[in-house]
């Protein structure tokens, strides 16, 4: 017999509703497996598609994306050029100060301030500015101005006696730069804009190069025209190349110290600790103390609902006569009772009896009890009041007790 079974530690599973941790784990195993498979699939997909994705900075020598310049950098390395990728301005300064270095700067967002570029350029040997912005031109060579982009459908021819340019022959079009005639600069790759794709400006023994169509260095475009020849010729002139891409970290701080510098370093850990505390507290308060208890609720029907519904129905359909009739029938019944008339007495009999008991005009009483048809809400209320007064008056008139002072 089940009820007589001795309870041993082995038999409590049928008494305990909560599953054991093992059971939960076993049940969850399948779904954990499904989740694991999904994760692997997602990871694989990302891994396989990521190679072609165009992320990474443009002209990043470490990026194999179409906008990167890994191809040029790798070929330079193979040719024995030491390609240095400095991380930050200070590293760039140190790297450029090594004699025999070429510095290539590409800063389309203008993170690097003009005076810092001047500082950097004065430290370095040859400098190649890749599509420089206005501020950088102003800082280094104020005479040179941007001449706008060349016609994108026509490649540019060298037309000068610079070695690199001559070897390249033609290059892809891009932004061009112009310079006044009275300077010592040389222009190559003239374009229809009146500017040149490449400028070389001698500067105290070194040379400052300005390459307008710098996109020709990208992995995507380097195979076109003589792009590769120009890129390699320009950047591989020395044994060492410092390829510097300024980032937002190189923006010089100015003005008051930032919020991060003012706050203590434990602020973030403390706020995260508070957040974790909130999570733990939520678990503490939210953990249910056993399953919910079910209970059948009783049917609750408020009895007055039909009456209220009927009253709203009268009101909405303006059933004044019907409403007043109901009041009148009730009043006539009570008046008949009070005056001792039979239950079957007609309205006319009751009305006459009321009139004689009160000494009032029978027509007036009959009007209240039967004849007046209310044509407005105001009259409905007035009739209801009149009926109430009539009942009160009859109650006083038939009261055998001596009249007392009105309450």
């Amino acid at each position: 017999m089940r009820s007589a079974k001795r309870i041993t530690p082995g038999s409590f599973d049928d008494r305990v509703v909560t599953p054991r941790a093992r059971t939960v784990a076993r049940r969850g195993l399948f779904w954990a497996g499904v989740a694991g498979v999904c994760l692997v699939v997602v990871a694989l997909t990302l891994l396989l598609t990521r190679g072609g994705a165009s992320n990474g900075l443009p002209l990043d020598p470490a990026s194999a994306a179409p906008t990167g310049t890994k191809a040029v950098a790798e070929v330079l390395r193979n040719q024995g050029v030491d390609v240095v990728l400095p991380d930050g301005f200070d590293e760039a300064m140190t790297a450029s100060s090594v004699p025999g270095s070429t510095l290539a700067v590409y800063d389309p967002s203008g993170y690097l301030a003009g005076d810092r570029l001047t500082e950097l350029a004065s430290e370095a040997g040859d400098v190649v500015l890749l599509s420089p912005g206005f501020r950088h031109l102003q800082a280094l060579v104020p005479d040179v101005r941007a001449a706008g982009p060349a016609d994108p459908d026509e490649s540019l021819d060298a037309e000068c006696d610079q070695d690199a340019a001559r070897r390249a022959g033609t290059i892809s079009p891009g932004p061009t730069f112009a310079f006044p005639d009275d300077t010592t600069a040389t222009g190559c790759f003239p374009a229809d804009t009146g500017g040149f794709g490449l400028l070389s400006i001698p500067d105290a023994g070194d040379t400052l190069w300005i390459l307008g169509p710098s996109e020709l260095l990208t992995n995507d475009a380097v195979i076109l025209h003589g792009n590769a020849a120009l890129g390699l010729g320009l950047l591989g002139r020395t044994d060492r190349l410092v390829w510097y891409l300024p980032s937002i970290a190189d923006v010089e701080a100015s003005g008051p110290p930032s919020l991060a510098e003012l706050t203590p370093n434990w602020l973030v850990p403390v706020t995260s600790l508070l957040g974790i505390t909130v999570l733990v507290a939520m678990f503490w308060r939210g953990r249910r103390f056993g399953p919910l208890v079910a209970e059948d609720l009783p049917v609750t029907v408020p009895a007055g609902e039909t009456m209220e519904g009927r009253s709203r129905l009268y009101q909405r359909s303006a059933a004044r006569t019907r409403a007043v009739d109901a009041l009148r029938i009730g009043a006539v019944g009570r008046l008949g009772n009070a005056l001792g008339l039979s239950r079957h007495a007609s309205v006319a009999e009751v009305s006459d009896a009321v009139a004689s008991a009160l000494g009032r005009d029978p027509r007036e009483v009959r009007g209240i009890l039967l004849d007046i048809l209310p044509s407005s809400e105001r009259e409905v209320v007035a009739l209801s009041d009149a009926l109430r007064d009539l009942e009160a008056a009859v109650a006083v008139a038939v009261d055998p007790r001596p009249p007392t002072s009105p309450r």
Partner: protein
Amino acid sequence: MTVSGRFVALVVLGIVPVIVAGEATGEPGLVLAGWLLFAIALGILDLALAASPRVLVPSRSLPSRTRLGETVASDLYLVNPGRRTLRGVVRDAWQPSAGASITRTRVTIPAGERRLVTVPLTPFRRGERRVELVTVRSFGPLGLWARQATLKSPGRIRVLPPFHARKHLPSRLARLRELDGATSVMVRGQGTEFDSLREYVRGDDVRSIDWRATARRRDVVVRTWRPERDRRVILVIDTARTSAARIADEPRLDTAFEASLLLAALATRAGDRVDLLAYDRRMRARVQGATGADLMAKMVDALAGVESELLEMDWAAVPGLVRGVTSQRSLLVLLTSVDAPGASTALLSMLPQLTKRHMVVVASVIDPGTIAASRQRGNRDEVYLAAAAERSLLDITRVSEAIRQMGAEVVTASPSELPPALADRYLALKAAGRL
């Protein structure tokens, strides 16, 4: 598994080392991670040291029944056959309407011992109130983390109707004794039967002198009379949908229970036999052939679990049911609702079959709110409400008239007034000998 407030406090306490040691070492993030690991390690240690709540053996000791509104103690014994002392919190998961005033109890059960958890219950609903589960949280010695398990431990308690109307019983019993020969006020007439002869005492009605017996005994002897006895009273409670309506915050059904309990208590003292049927389309409760205290106990027990059903009352079956109880003439009390004429058609069409053989009383609750609304006429809305109230009172009057025309009696009163009103009607019928 669950955590305690103490664990939350431990986690938040990490602010101190994060700031102090973080300032000192300059690596507050590492300190934070270390503190969290420390807290979790303490929690795991605590959990490992906590006694298993799964091994507990619960057993119950419950009173089988109680009246609605009374408080009883529900005792739950927990035996700990494990090897560790269990420190924890117990939740005895009673249904909400069982009115458990304590839902969490702290317990400490040493290994191999038994402890009692008492929960006072004040049920606020009639019927069977149940408990199925007991949940135990067992904390470790540090009180940080806890193991939680839910154990099966079924129990039930039957909550009987309250019978508030019993306060009316003494006065009605006094009236009953007045009808009886036991008091000097003795009414001779219909509805009484010959009881015994006794000596004349001053004040007795001279008309009741039995001259023949006086002649035999040479002493003045009077006859005494007593009300008729051993009549049958059949109570039929309508448990169909209209009985669910709440009037003055009491369902019609509960008022019907009160009225039938009072009437049954009175009738069984008066020597009548009482039978009870609660019916809609099925028999919901039935009490037959019980008398005295046994009758009351059986009635409250049978009625405890009866609830209103969302069904239409099958009046056509009632004559058959009554025939099944008795073929003798009896007082038939129908506890139902007298409402709109349309809703009462079935009742009215069945009534003649009953009134032919029996004395029928139809008892119905009337809403005091309706009467109050018919008097309240302050503004336009109230006037319309009063008109609607008058109309429903008129409906009740018309249905009552129709019932009276069929030879049955009607008792209508507010919920608090209905039980004594029905008892009074019974006494009046008894006095008039119409049973």
